[in-house]
């Protein structure tokens, strides 16, 4: 690849600009030709034709935060696994044993969460 080193990464920036620009352009195009007749019954929230009771920005039990915590742990592990996977060909047995120990420690955590009943849907 000739050119300066960051050239491939320049494409990401340009694609972000092009993507946002094209979406906004389509919205603009639609705005030119679409009708617009809002009236009160049209602009209330859809709740199967019932009048909505209260806001939906309320506290409720999403039951997902434990999963989110476990995910963060595993994702941090993935950050370590990617460089390990790329360099594995040159590292040999030492890296393999070390990564097995690393994954086992992590899975002990998953086992603990499992036994605590965290993974169960209450």
């Amino acid at each position, binding site marked *: 690849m000739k050119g300066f080193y960051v050239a491939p990464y320049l494409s990401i920036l340009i694609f972000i600009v092009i993507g946002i620009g094209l979406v906004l352009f389509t919205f603009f195009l639609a705005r030119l030709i679409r009708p617009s007749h809002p009236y009160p019954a049209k602009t209330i929230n859809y*709740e199967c034709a019932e009048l909505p009771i209260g806001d939906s920005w309320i506290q409720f039990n999403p039951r997902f935060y434990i999963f989110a915590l476990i995910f963060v742990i595993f994702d941090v592990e993935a950050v370590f696994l990617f460089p390990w996977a790329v360099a594995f060909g040159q590292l040999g047995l030492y890296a*393999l044993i070390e990564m097995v120990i690393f994954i086992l420690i992590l899975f002990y955590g998953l086992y603990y969460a499992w036994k605590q009943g965290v993974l169960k*849907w209450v």
Partner: protein
Amino acid sequence: MIWPVAIGELHGVFSWLYSLLESTGLSQPWLDIIRYIVLGLVVFGVLCLIALFLVWWERKIAAHIQQRFGPMRHGWHGWYQTIADALKLLQKEDILVDTRDKVVFFWAPVICFVAAFLAYICIPFGDKLIVADLNIGILYIIAITTFTVISLLMAGWGSNNKYALLGGMRSAAQIVSYEVPMVASILVVVVFVGSLSMVDIVEAQSGWFTNWFIFRVPFGPIAFVTYIIAATAEANRTPFDIPEAEQELVAGYNIEYSGMKFSMFFLAEFANGFTVSAIAVTLFLGGWHGPFLPSWVWFMGKTLAVVFLLMLFRWTYPRLRVDQLMEFAWKFLVPVTFANLILGAWMKYAGWYW
């Protein structure tokens, strides 16, 4: 064995265009900028064509599985039905809810589409047909497609609708959970290739089709199957489509969207379906390698075959419950994929593969 190089490769067109651009005598940064702008517009066009085709195809497959014909009136077997639908959506009124969060509601479809669009930088559509061969290719695609979660949460929260909020929350939990087995299945391939670049991964599978990673028993097929399961969940498709379960959540996160904003979600969904299939083809099915035909024909053919598989899943399997979905991810897929990763690494070390 090296397969013969076929005529009809497309990269000649692009290198001719680039030499035309070089002859104008611009400096290197400007050449790169103009090249990427042109490629961005080309990719956008290709993406729209793919999405239009996939929508039509999905409707036809659904219809034929249910012993109907599906769209028949517009052209041969309704081939321009989705073009007519897109033009209709362009003219639809944009119904805006009073109680929405204006900024979040507006930017959710934009982020959803841009996240799906950005993944196409790194997909090798054929020999040398890649926008930019980033050296972190597959990691970049995983990172950028995860932005979809943020947009779905934004859509759910910004609509101020209970169905939408539930749909957004569910999709966040689901995509986050299936991210882990997906990464672990991809890592098996990365261990063997020793590179994250998509082009390197494809090149590692050149030659006879037994070099494809799906045929490297036993870890290849296991990684492929777990990847397909996780990818189906990532793309929010049935049997993992509880975020937009029609029967309970009506439409999930996009319930308050109409007109062009809705169609952006729709476009992004099909673009994501194509992306996960393209990754499956690149990682496990040899990418664009194949005999006689041009490489991009092979790539599109294989990818459409995987998309067809996902569509068959959608129209033949019932939907999972939320608890089954989560327990399947954490109690089955995560242990299996990590055990498979260790097995793959051991076989790479010991050299027990061909």
